[in-house]
């Protein structure tokens, strides 16, 4: 099961099926008068075909192990979502500080002093963007 080619085929198949089944909920119409569901149905049909071909091809090729580590991508995503949530509830300065402190957990070494410096620098950049470029940032 730990074969990248097979996982890829299954993954593509899952996407094709979810979009294809979704398309069936919309009016299909005919080719001459296409409904909203016709085009996505066609495209997901093609994608399903490619998924099957990928699975078929995986049988003829040497298996490639799938490398996957959830830690770093997880930390990055948590820091992004944290930034958005805190910026919405509180303000963006707090969001930036939170993001830097969470994201830095993924770096090779952790030092809160460095995080503080980075956060301070980025807050300064954000203020510069707001004042000089006129971006509408909810900083405070």
């Amino acid at each position, binding site marked *: 099961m730990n074969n990248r080619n097979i996982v890829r085929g299954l993954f593509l198949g899952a996407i094709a099926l979810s979009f294809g089944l979704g398309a069936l909920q*919309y009016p299909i119409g005919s080719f001459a008068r*296409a409904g909203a569901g016709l085009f996505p149905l066609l495209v997901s049909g093609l994608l399903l075909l490619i998924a099957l071909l*990928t699975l078929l091809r995986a049988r003829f090729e040497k298996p490639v192990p799938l490398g996957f580590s959830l830690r770093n991508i997880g930390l990055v995503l948590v820091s992004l979502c944290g930034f958005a949530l805190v910026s919405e509830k509180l303000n963006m300065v707090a969001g930036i500080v939170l993001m*830097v402190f969470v994201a830095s957990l993924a770096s090779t070494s952790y030092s809160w002093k460095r995080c503080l410096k980075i956060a301070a620098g980025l807050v300064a950049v*954000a203020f510069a963007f707001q004042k000089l*470029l006129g971006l509408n940032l909810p900083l405070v």
Partner: protein
Amino acid sequence: MMDILHNLAFGFEHALTWQNLLFCAIGCTVGTLVGLLPGLGPLATISLLLPLTYSIPTGGALIMLAGIYYGAQYGDSVSAITMKIPHASSIVACIDGYQMTLKGKTGLALFTAGVSSFIGGTVAIVVLSFLAPSLGEVAFLFGPADYCALMLVGFVCVSFVTTGSLLNGLAMCLIGILLGQIGTDVNSGLQRYTFDLPFLAEGVGLVSIALGCFGIAEISKNLDAREERTPFNGKIKLMPTWPEFKRIIPSALRGSAIGSFLGILPGGGPVIAQFAAYAIDKKVSKYRHEIGQGAIEGVAGQAAADEAAARTSFIPLMSIGIPENAVMALMMAAFVIKGIQPGPNMIAGHPDLFWGLVASMWVGNCFLLLLNVPLVRYWLSVFKIPYNVLFPAILFFCCIGTYSVNNNLDDIFVTAVFGFAGYLFMRLDMDAAPLMLGFILGPMLEENFRRAMLISRGSFHTFIERPISASLLGLVALFIGWQLLSFVLKSRRTGSEATPPVGESAVS
């Protein structure tokens, strides 16, 4: 001929205003700076810097975007030469460029790359100003069916060129098209795949996808790899001797011609142009035995081709209105955000924008030469920033970039989702560049497909009866057939190697 000179003069009038000069300079500088950063190729750089152009008048914004694009392209090759950090856009520069660095000839390599890029860019601009208007007239012959066929050709070519595997690339294109379906259907007003979320009603944000798949995913990959790079500290001697300089010219001219040509073809662009120019230099150059071990030709030819193709790939976008690779698709989206629809009507309808852009490319060329050749040593200090400091900053810029498209914090969640998707794609060895193209062309493909079917009353014959679409689809069929054949042959060969007795008995 006189027309073109007249038009170019008109263009320079627009490009040489103080304001536009400033935008061009800012674009080139910022583009180079961000392009130098590890893990950020042209696609991520452009989408990251897109918000900068929102508050700028249209003409200036286009000029700045173009500047960002070739700045990023150039910054990439600098990081490739000095530190062997390849992005997709500068793999070839790593070969001879880095070899020259190892020999202590970094300065010469950078000078060669700078001058060759300048030559390549200049040649490409001449090609661009001759070809784009006349190709634009061809575009008026295109009907909806022909547009569909042309987009399919683009998908097939891009899939093959960027990923090397037609199946993977096409899959990514199709996923992109499906993602483009999210939002309100233009024809019926029905909301598709929105799950009743209000911020999806207008579709998924382009910047969210680009930053997710190319920015966030790339950062996570670099964090996974955890390689500490030693910053470049060597001395740089820039000026070449006269015999060295003479070696640059023929190779750069060859590269410019190849790059200009390959840049126009669907699926073409800088990457394939570099490989082609490098391969040809290896065949015909006077110093071909040195190529691969740090020869000037190995850097000059590919740098010229790179720059030339980067510029001529604007031709299909601006004359026909169909972007031919992912970067151009992003450019097109940026044009549309500014209210300009690229296509045959752009040259006629907005001559000031078109010719101003063409002229500004040459101005940008001069800026790049100025920025890069004498000042390159200052750029290299960017590499002294450790990645632990850099990546939170890149994340921050991703957030700001996403947010300022609509001033909406919800978009950041969308970016996060695509960051995860991009990471999955990367781990599954699927290149996200075709996805970008599919996403941007998807709605156009649907529109033209529906229109073609409406005109033909539901008959697929229209695709075969129209000469343009028939020949384009023939190309697609030929290409897919060739791919199938080569796959069967390859698997048969490896199959027979695995079981030699059978193969031998078959021969005997």
